[in-house]
């Protein structure tokens, strides 16, 4: 036994030299982060109950805009990543990750990642002050118009093009034509941020209700984050940034999105575990709680261990983004791959360990599975992120 302790002791001194090289950021939660968590949780516990979330998936308004306004302006979630100079909270990805965990726990239908993370990160990169101010206030939301399955490390192939100006257009007017399939958080958005090909390749801004914009709700695997297909037909647009700056903005936004989605997956996995644990403690079969059977206890132990590992990965990614750490790319690839796998495991176990009730429509387990699987497919699958890792840490393929 003890071998473990002993090995640790042995390495302790040899590690002195290596210690400096392996300094890691704070991976715990600060007091401020914990306070923010409580604030978000208390709103979600009241307003995003399982019954409410389920019911909303069958209404035309699958996003809960009322809830979002509360989170956005009252709790201040919308402007977390936006500097105070632009009216935001000047917080960091560490705090944003905590909000994502809570949203994942509740599988809440709010556009936090699409607007307050991805769109915001793009606008920050491009320095679009006026729009950042609006977003920070929580009054409007925006979405980056790329398919949700876009992989952060790969430039999404633009499916929108600059169209020739209309006959009566002023010089310098831009018009966009094309379509983008499966965009997350675009349904409730007031603004669409659209990467488009042409001269210049750029990122453009379009009002979601502008003439020539068509948003078609998609029957999505995950209706707690319903996707939209976009069609643009000569829509008038404002150029936000062009060339490499625009590409960088898209890449930065997608990477931030992947990291924060990993935090959401962590929260989802953790809550699915909590709910399932509570169930097996009070569900009796064979005159004892089913949670007393060792076959299940061991599955729970493994599940819990997976959550502890996912938490470490997610915290590291958030800390690296917050500090603009050069290890950021590795951190995000790790977090998204590990948290995707853990969330899907959680969704699966949640259904199986509930038995028949877990397979019903009334029970929230399917919402967790669907959100877990969809988010695992989104912004780079675990496999894609491991492939990215291979390049980043010099483990080239066969």
């Amino acid at each position, binding site marked *: *036994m*003890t*071998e*473990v*302790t*002993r*090995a*640790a*002791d*042995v*390495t*302790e*001194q040899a*590690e*002195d030299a*290596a*210690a400096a*090289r*392996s300094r*890691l950021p*704070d*991976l*715990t939660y600060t007091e401020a982060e914990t306070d923010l968590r409580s604030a978000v949780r208390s709103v979600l516990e009241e307003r995003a109950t399982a019954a409410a979330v389920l019911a909303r998936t069958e209404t035309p308004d699958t996003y809960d805009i009322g809830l979002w306004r509360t989170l956005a302006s009252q709790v201040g979630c919308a402007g977390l990543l936006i500097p105070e100079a632009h009216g935001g909270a000047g917080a960091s990805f560490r705090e944003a990750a905590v909000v994502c965990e809570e949203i994942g726990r509740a599988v809440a239908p709010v556009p936090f990642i699409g607007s307050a993370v991805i769109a915001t990160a793009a606008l920050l990169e491009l320095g679009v002050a006026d729009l950042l101010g609006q977003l920070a206030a929580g009054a409007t939301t925006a979405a980056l118009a790329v398919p949700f399955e876009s992989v952060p490390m790969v430039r999404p192939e633009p499916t929108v093009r600059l169209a020739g100006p209309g006959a009566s257009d002023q010089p310098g007017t831009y018009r966009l034509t094309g379509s983008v399939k499966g965009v997350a958080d675009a349904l409730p958005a007031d603004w669409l941020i659209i990467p488009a090909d042409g001269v210049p390749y750029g990122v453009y801004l379009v009002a979601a209700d502008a003439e020539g914009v068509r948003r078609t709700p998609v029957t999505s695997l995950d209706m707690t984050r319903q996707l939209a297909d976009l069609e643009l037909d000569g829509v008038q647009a404002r150029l936000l940034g062009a060339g490499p700056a625009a590409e960088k903005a898209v890449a930065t936004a997608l990477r931030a999105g992947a990291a924060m989605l990993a935090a959401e997956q962590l929260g989802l996995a953790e809550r699915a575990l909590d709910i399932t*644990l509570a169930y*097996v*403690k009070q569900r009796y079969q064979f005159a*004892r*709680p089913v*949670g*007393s059977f*060792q076959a*299940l*206890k*061991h599955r*729970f*132990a*493994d599940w*819990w*261990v997976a959550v*502890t*590992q*996912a*938490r*470490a*990965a997610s*915290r*590291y990614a958030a800390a690296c983004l917050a500090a603009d750490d050069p290890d950021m790319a590795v951190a995000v690839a*790790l977090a998204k*791959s*590990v948290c995707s796998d853990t969330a899907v495991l959680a969704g699966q176990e949640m259904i199986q360990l509930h038995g028949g009730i877990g397979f019903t429509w009334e029970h929230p387990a399917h919402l967790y599975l669907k959100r877990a699987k969809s988010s695992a497919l989104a912004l780079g699958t675990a496999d894609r992120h*491991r*492939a990215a*890792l*291979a390049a980043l*840490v*010099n*483990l*080239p*393929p*066969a």
Partner: protein
Amino acid sequence: MSEADLAEGLRAQVREFLSQHDPATTERLEFVRARFDAGLAWVHYPVGLGGQGLPRIAQKVVDAEFAAAGAPTNRPERNGIGLGMAAPTILAFGDDEQRARWLKPLWTGEDIWCQLFSEPGAGSDLANLATRAVRDGDHWVVNGQKVWTSSAHIASRAMLVTRTDPDLPKHKGLTYFGVDMTSPGVEVRPLRQATGEAEFNEVFLTDVVIPDTDRIGEVGQGWQVATGTLMNERVALGAFALPREGGMIGFSAKTWREHPERRTAGLHDRLLRLWAAAEVSRLAGERLRQQLAAGQPGPEGSGAKLVYARLNQEIADLQLELLGGDGLRYSDWTMHRPDSADFYGRDSGYRYLRSKGNSIEGGTSEILRNIVAERVLGLPPEIRLDKDKPWKDLPR
């Protein structure tokens, strides 16, 4: 005092100590004894017992300062069980006389300690142990057999759990001792393991006489003391995070880079999964360390060893496949008795075999899952038939 002030103060103390005990010329034992007396051995221990009652994290400052000066060490690698398990047990449950008598030679390495817990009939079910201790005036007479005792062949003292009252239920009739391994009647026989050598031993105890002054804790309190020992065992953490690729995965990453001709798509997938898992477990270990340092010990510790054992085994398994034909060779089957366990130092075949022990030693992975499920997740305990009956009436 701020952490920085504390660190600066300790560094000054070490420098002062070094100015009086030249590490280059002072004999090793003399040096480490003086270091103990100066309260610079383990600073989180009490004053007078090698420490200064400081927070645990202050220790790394002291160790780093001594290491930088090239000072001789107390050879902690030879006494992992003593330092990691016996010392905290003595501190928590021993009396003043025992602390004064045992802790100094333990820390300096003059006394190597081993752990006489497991028996042929008592492994996971440690409380079932049968080694008998019978009181005879101011001493005890002990008879029984222990097994899997790592380092017994180099140990001069042992943590010993015995049964003192077979009529009580199993957990109640146990008593704990710090036994002198050189006593007449202690016989240590090597027990050869799958790797070819013998880190561990069988220990036969025949009419071994133990003075009552070597009893740790009250008569009948042995289970509480043993549980205290085992809690220290499961904190499987060094003071610092290893660097990235610092563990077993480093060997595989290196082999992969050096041998493009051995790469296949399937191996690549496995390597990446394990690389990611190993890196994440490194981060999880660091998170745990940070929580402990901040005085918010989380339950994650119990999971760390589960992950560690599984990863070591899977990585060692992959490594053999990365070696091609060399995976078919083994370094050395000769029976010998090493001073300490070495997980990483030998070849890949050794690591493949040695890692199989990781999920058995220190509590099997099945037992650890029970612990996580019950103590962390609050799931109902196993149904037990053995808790309240007299130990002597249990089926076995």
